[in-house]
């Protein structure tokens, strides 16, 4: 649905077949895991079996003696990287920590932490060699929970770490000097919560916990690296940001950035998890040692144990409202487990937590705590699903106390343009209220639940979306088609959405634009394929290159028509003379005349966009709970989201549906199950339960198009936010169905049965 008048487009808003489609349905597309080079060796990583242990010595002599083994590297071979903070999605890393995460030096900080790497003729030989590497560990007591880790008497994971009071993730901060596992403390404060809570007639305060969850991309991490004799390094992999990884590689390897080339192959999902580097570094080091290209891929267990999942959190939320349903104040405490190194997404969680609502008095305290678990990485709207879960659950309770329909309560308190967020920024033009109202007007809202033990829940969400720089270039072909070079890895169809904006600008068909994704030597700088920014920022870049090309072609038309360029205009795909109406040529016709009017035309541009435009959404879900087993079945789901101007309709909708499915998994079944020694017990798709096709219904969407006024095509990020509301929406729906408030994720069947037994025990 469209609620705001928008421009009429010919290509934008349609759903052409993606340019890489034929390759991907026939198996011809080459993903990172598919890459192969002649003379290539296979690398494998030896990982710590302990969650917290000193590495006293490593003896690889037996492994090196195994026929077929070429080289071994350990932490001792790593250069010492700088102690500088670096971008990694909403999570942060410092180069030194990143280097230590890629390969442990003195201490293994989590089960699965890399301690050595081996290169051999085959994968099987490399695996055998791992078993022959002797590592002498001194096992230490692990710290496995954020709140526990904050206590004074627990072991310090980084003995010299002191707590810093920080405003930003990379803030040098005010050092408190207190040695602690708490790496950072931050706060967002707006207005006066004491005054706000005094105004309230009802106050609800609750505690919540969530578990570690994984992005669960189907293609495991992989890298093939070749360290050439001239010291130029080439890496073929699947990543969410070639330029970012090039920088990380340079810092970790202490190698000039100009001598590293990252080649983006097709990527089998990322969701934030393929922003950091892991295997790229040991693959390059093994290549240097052996003189061969080295390919490394992770097993699924390694992906779970050795990459960057999303933080578990322990949280408090307190919200007050007046009798007539106005929220007067909100307080929250967010404790995020960062993993083995500082830098969780707690800051982003705080920023997103209450942001769908207009609340004048807010205080949010955030804690970033290191624990002996993998270093957290970004995962779709990082930090925000965790933080919005308590917000949406407490707001649901308040609505009940006030006696309002939960959707009406949200509509009454919805943030609008000009209202201030917790960080003080005024909301720009956006479609928050429109989403809520669209849901209220939906058939779903009006439908009956149709049976016992069924309930309906709603929840809203916010995600800020990112900008980041982008570069692209175009070459106009004589037949009127356009070759479009991009530099942002395409995970979900962005090369087509970017090509569509190019086609729109020139008045040609999407199929007449031929997009390709280039390596770091072949295109200008591009930020991460992350932050829901790829279509947005490349839209800006395409806007630039097409505008420049149009000006150049105008000059050629002027030459043809023996007039001045300012007398030529361009509209709807046609160049025409302002003076003589009969003088007109389509873009395609002009393309055929470039050679004779001065030669071919190609244009490149780099942009640093502003005004990413925030995302807002509200979801509604119907569930049926089996009160005897605790099983939750999802009967119906509708997600209403402000998607700005949709470029590719079906891929926008697909992003909304995909994030929703991940949020459902997060809410109901997904978790890292640890024993008391910090061993993950369910590191396979068998026991880490991502939703299967049978676990989900059709996922309905209401796509509200409120164009982003700060973008030439009205694009707003769409990809991430849909993972945010399912956690709260499902908790609220389960309450509506069987009367228990679930505050510990996942809301697994055994927890629901226990809650029901406790509830029934009490009422007896």
């Amino acid at each position, binding site marked *: 649905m469209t609620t705001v008048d928008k421009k009429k487009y010919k290509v934008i808003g349609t*759903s052409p077949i*993606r340019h*890489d*489609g*034929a390759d*991907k*349905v*026939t*198996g*011809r597309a*080459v*993903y990172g895991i*598919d890459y*192969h080079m002649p003379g290539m060796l296979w690398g494998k990583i030896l990982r710590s079996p302990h969650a917290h242990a000193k590495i006293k010595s490593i003896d690889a002599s037996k492994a090196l003696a*195994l*026929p*077929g083994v070429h080289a071994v590297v350990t932490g001792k071979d790593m250069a010492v990287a700088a102690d500088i903070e670096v971008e990694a999605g909403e999570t942060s890393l410092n180069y030194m920590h990143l280097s230590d995460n890629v390969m442990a030096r003195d201490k293994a900080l989590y089960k699965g932490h890399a301690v050595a790497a081996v290169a051999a003729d*085959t*994968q*099987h*030989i490399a695996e*055998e060699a791992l078993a022959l590497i002797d590592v002498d560990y001194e096992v230490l007591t692990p710290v496995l929970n954020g709140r526990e880790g904050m206590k004074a008497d627990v072991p310090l994971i980084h003995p010299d770490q002191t707590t810093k009071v920080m405003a930003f993730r990379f803030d040098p901060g005010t050092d408190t000097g207190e040695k602690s596992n708490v790496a950072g403390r931050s706060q967002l404060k707006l207005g006066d919560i004491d005054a706000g809570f005094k105004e309230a007639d009802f106050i609800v305060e609750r505690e919540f916990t969530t578990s570690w969850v994984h*992005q*669960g*991309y*189907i*293609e*495991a991490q992989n890298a093939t690296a070749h360290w050439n004799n001239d010291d130029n390094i080439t890496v073929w992999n699947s990543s969410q940001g070639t330029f970012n990884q090039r920088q990380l590689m340079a810092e970790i390897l202490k190698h000039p950035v100009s001598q590293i080339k990252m080649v983006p192959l*097709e*990527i*089998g*999902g990322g*969701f934030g998890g393929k922003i950091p580097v892991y295997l790229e570094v040991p693959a390059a080091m093994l290549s240097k040692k052996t003189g061969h290209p080295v390919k490394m*891929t992770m*097993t*699924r267990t390694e992906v779970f144990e050795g990459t960057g999942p999303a933080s578990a959190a322990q949280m408090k939320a307190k919200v007050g409202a007046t009798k007539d349903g106005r929220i007067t104040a909100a307080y929250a405490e967010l404790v995020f487990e960062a993993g083995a190194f500082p830098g969780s997404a707690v800051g982003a969680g705080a920023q997103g937590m209450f942001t769908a609502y207009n609340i004048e008095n807010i205080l949010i305290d955030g804690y970033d705590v290191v624990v002996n678990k993998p270093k957290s990485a970004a995962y779709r709207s990082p930090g925000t699903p965790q933080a919005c879960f308590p917000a949406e659950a407490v707001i649901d309770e308040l609505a009940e106390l006030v006696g309002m329909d939960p959707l009406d309560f949200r509509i009454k308190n919805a943030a609008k343009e000009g209202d201030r967020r917790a960080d003080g920024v005024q909301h720009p033009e956006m479609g928050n209220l429109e989403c809520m109202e669209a849901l209220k007007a939906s058939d779903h809202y009006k439908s009956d639940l149709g049976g016992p033990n069924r309930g309906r829940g709603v929840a809203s969400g916010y995600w800020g979306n990112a900008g980041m720089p982008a570069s692209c270039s175009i070459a106009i072909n004589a037949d009127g088609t356009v070759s479009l070079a991009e530099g942002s890895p395409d*995970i*979900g169809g962005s090369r087509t959405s970017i090509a569509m904006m190019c086609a729109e600008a020139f008045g040609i068909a999407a199929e007449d634009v031929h997009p390709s994704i280039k390596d770091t030597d072949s295109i200008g700088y591009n930020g991460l394929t992350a932050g829901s920014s790829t279509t947005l920022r490349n839209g800006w870049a395409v806007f630039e290159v097409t505008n420049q090309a149009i000006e150049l072609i105008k000059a050629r038309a002027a030459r043809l028509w023996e007039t001045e360029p300012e007398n030529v205009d361009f509209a709807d795909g046609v160049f025409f003379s302002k003076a003589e109406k009969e003088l007109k040529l389509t873009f395609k016709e002009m393309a055929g005349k470039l050679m004779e009017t001065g030669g071919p035309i190609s244009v490149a541009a780099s942009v640093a966009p502003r005004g990413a435009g925030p995302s807002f959404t509200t979801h509604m879900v119907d569930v049926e709970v089996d009160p005897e087993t605790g099983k939750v079945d999802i009967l119906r789901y509708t997600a209403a989201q402000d998607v700005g101007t949709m470029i*590719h309709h*079906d*891929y926008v*909708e*697909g*992003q909304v*549906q*995909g*994030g*929703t*499915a991940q949020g459902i998994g997060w809410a109901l079944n997904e978790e890292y199950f640890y024993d008391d020694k910090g061993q993950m017990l369910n590191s*396979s*798709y*068998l026991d880490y339960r*991502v*939703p*299967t*096709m*049978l676990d*989900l219904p*059709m*996922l309905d969407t209401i796509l509200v198009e409120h164009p982003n006024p700060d973008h030439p095509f009205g694009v707003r990020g769409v990809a991430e936010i849909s993972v945010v509301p399912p956690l709260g929406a499902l908790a609220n729906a389960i309450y509506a169905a069987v009367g228990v408030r679930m505050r510990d994720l996942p809301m697994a069947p055994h927890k629901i049965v226990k809650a029901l037994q406790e509830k029934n025990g009490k009422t007896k």
Partner: protein
Amino acid sequence: MAAVKTHVRTTLNGEATEYLCEPNQSLLEVLRDVLFLTGTKEGCNDGNCGACTVNMDGRIVDSCLVLGVEAEGSDILTIEGVATPEGLHPIQQAFLENAALQCGICTPGFIVASKALLEKEPNPSEARVRHWLAGNLCRCTGYDKIVKAVVDAANTMGGKK
């Protein structure tokens, strides 16, 4: 240590194909690393994601759970054998037209599995499609558009009869 390799004879995508492999190599590994047919993907290597689905003697199997040596005498279809020189298979076309793939890594497994279903049951219900494909994980789409693509393909294929 390289063991003695076994000579295996199969029919692969309609053509007689021979390869050498060691007993500890899976059919998946043989397809990808020996025959360089990388359309069949590895997602979990323990039979829980379906990305490596191939059709073996008329049944879909996870090729990570079949040894290369076990394929002796088998007739195997991989994603590379689904399209013909005349064009894409209707299921492949339906996946494109329904935007049933995002990153695309699970797509070959879904298409090979769906093809086996539609050859056996030309008009499956939504519930049947979901049941048949429950062994194939997709993390991008939420499955909605995949289900629609398979049902759509069934209609197209039925229409051609």
